[in-house]
């Protein structure tokens, strides 16, 4: 049968077809005398799995990742399971490089059809760090990080990060992360953080300091859950002396102790320009067990992508949320409310531009919905095809949305639905979208705000947006 080498590249492939392509297994080989082989027909089983390069990493977590290999019964299965094992090893966060070698098994206990799979891993040093750039909510920031990966051998790590953003935001956090073994891949994260941010559209700035506990797990391979508790002390103050009085009234210190549940499922094929798949995120937050802020907030975000032809993608997205106040002694501050509008939300409006405003300061609302219908096509005449041109897309969009306020008047459910149907804001437009590596998207759109309220702040014409999470 000969020797088969299947060597994975140093960068782990994101899906199996790329993996196969990179391994050179698809039959575009140079030699002419290779016959087409259906890998599924080739009987194989794994006799041995070696993992080289372990120093402080404990055996048990590595075993968990490679266990499945022993269940393979044909060659294609071996390849698939080897790929999955690489992904799992990567997710442990202990290794810098993972290489896979598949060889026929030799030696005493070898069986016919037996294979020996060797993983060569390089562990991270005790302390790593670096300076990165990252993209946030319409701003770019620079991130200084220091990590102590794989502290005790099971993937625990301590990391401290300091970020400075272009919009005068700055963040500091120190966290301890411990992944656990198990089918559901649970992991625990505790962190203390301090974040300073300014919101000129609402006229205030805030300083948050607190503690956060996060417990994440997968209920099935697709659904990720995060249970969080956070205790945050928040200091609000006005940005300038001319801020509106409604914002000034919210200045001061508050303590928020809240429980949050985040459910997410992301089966899109790409983060930036997905061509198929959908994303669902449901967040529920209950604040008020302790502290002087109390509310119940539920938010939903849904996105679906559908490829019409090869490169033409239709994307629909929908986002909605509502907040209910808890009881009389606990309040909802301007920092917790819902805001829509902006290049990452309803385009054609300024950031936080939809909703009640006083003196130019956005006050936020307690209920909202927003939807988008997008068409992404490659650039006209496809310049730079296969290379540079792939980074760009032309983008046509139609956005709509509305806000409502539970706290303003005592409304019943029916009233709220009615408010959310009246006075819808609509905007449409077109533009160019650009991919920034695999981490962010830049959009430059020409927008036409079509329907809007008197108090909204629109942004017709050219609008620039950079971020990860677009409506």
């Amino acid at each position, binding site marked *: 049968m000969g020797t088969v080498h299947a060597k994975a590249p140093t960068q782990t492939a994101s899906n199996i077809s790329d993996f196969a392509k990179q391994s050179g297994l698809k039959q575009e080989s140079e030699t002419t005398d290779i016959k087409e082989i259906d890998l599924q027909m080739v009987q194989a089983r794994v006799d041995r799995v070696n993992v080289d390069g372990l120093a402080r990493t404990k055996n048990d977590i590595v075993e968990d990742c490679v266990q499945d290999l022993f269940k393979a019964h044909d060659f294609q299965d071996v390849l698939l399971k080897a790929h999955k094992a690489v992904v799992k090893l990567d997710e442990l966060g202990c290794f810098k490089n993972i290489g896979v070698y598949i060889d026929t098994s030799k030696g005493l206990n070898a069986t016919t059809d037996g294979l020996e799979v060797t993983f060569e891993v390089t562990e991270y040093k005790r302390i790593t760090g670096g300076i990165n750039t990252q993209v946030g909510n319409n701003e770019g920031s620079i991130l200084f990080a220091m990590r102590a990966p794989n502290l005790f051998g099971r993937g625990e790590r301590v990391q401290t990060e300091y970020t400075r953003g272009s919009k005068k935001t700055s963040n500091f956090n120190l966290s301890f992360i411990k992944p656990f073994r198990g089918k559901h891949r649970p992991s625990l994260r505790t962190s203390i953080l301090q974040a300073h941010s300014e919101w000129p559209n609402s006229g205030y700035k805030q300083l948050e300091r607190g503690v956060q506990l996060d417990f994440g797990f997968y209920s099935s391979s697709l659904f990720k859950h995060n249970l969080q508790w956070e205790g945050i002390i928040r200091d*609000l103050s006005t940005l*300038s002396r001319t801020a509106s009085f409604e914002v000034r*009234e919210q*200045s*001061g*210190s508050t303590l928020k102790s809240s429980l949050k549940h985040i459910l997410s499922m992301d089966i899109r094929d790409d983060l930036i320009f997905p061509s198929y798949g959908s994303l669902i995120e449901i967040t529920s937050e209950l604040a008020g067990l302790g502290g002087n802020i109390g509310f119940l907030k539920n938010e939903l975000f849904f996105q679906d992508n559908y490829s019409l032809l090869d490169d033409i993608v239709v994307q629909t997205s929908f986002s909605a949320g509502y907040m209910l106040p808890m009881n009389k002694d606990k309040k909802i501050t301007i920092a917790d409310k819902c805001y829509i509008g902006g290049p990452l939300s309803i385009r054609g409006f300024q950031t936080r531009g939809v909703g009640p405003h006083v003196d130019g300061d956005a006050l936020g609302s307690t209920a909202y919905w927003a939807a988008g219908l997008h068409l992404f096509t490659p650039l006209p005449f496809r310049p730079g095809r296969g290379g540079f041109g792939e980074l760009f897309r032309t983008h046509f969009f139609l956005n709509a949305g509305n806000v409502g306020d539970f706290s303003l008047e005592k409304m019943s459910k029916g009233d709220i639905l009615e408010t959310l149907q009246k006075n819808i804001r609509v905007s449409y437009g077109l533009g160019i979208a650009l991919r920034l590596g695999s981490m962010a998207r830049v959009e430059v759109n020409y927008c036409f705000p079509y329907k809007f309220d008197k108090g909204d702040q629109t942004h017709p014409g050219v609008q620039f947006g950079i971020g990860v999470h677009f409506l």
Partner: protein
Amino acid sequence: MPGPLVERVSLEFEAQEAWPKDVKLFQPYEIEQILLPDNANCLAVQALLKMCNLDFTVEFRANAEAMSPSGKVPFIKVGRFVIAELEGIVQFINGKGISLTDKLDIEEKADLRAYMALVRNVIENAELFICWIDHETYNDVTSIRNGSVYPWPLNHFRNREKRNQVIKKLKVLDWYNKTLPEVHEEMANCCEALSVRLDQNSFFFGDKPTELDALVFGHLFTILTTPLPRNDLANIVRNYPSLINLVKRVETKYFNREDGKNI
């Protein structure tokens, strides 16, 4: 960012408008929260507005200090404008053509400024010292009142932050290292100076009150009527009958309250 100069210009334009009907004065909660020095300043501003015959309503807010543009209470909201502290409010009122000091000559105005600086430098710092540096008063009164509007554990953080701020201020003004007898002596000297200046007159500058009378009233009335573990400041003030009479005079004339606790 508009500076005081720009604000002064825009205040000039507002001067043409009469005093609106819905002026509000914001201060911390009187019963559970407010502390001695803040109470004194709030009362002084209230006295000032009453002396000028200007209507206002008092609004109590737990975060009044954070809301204030200068970080100090009290502040008033007049239409769109928010002005804090006695001196700022005096300037604002003068801009509207209302003044308690227009009959004073230049020398008397200079005296007025000097004596107001004296009250601020001595009496206010003595009050801060007693409230925040004296351990008994801090533990029994100040920390409880200051933290009463915050949930646990925020109250402890806020108390510590505020105390450090006050200590920093007193250190810079050379008050932190004073002993209690030294504080009493400063207070006594100040009261002596005020008493001598007041002499036998009804008010400091004749028979019409000025902002100095409002300021002195605010501080001395509060010192005399606030129960604290240490009554030293009150006892010092009681040695000066002319000052007590001034306080009584302002109280009966402008506050129409017969407060039995006053002496």
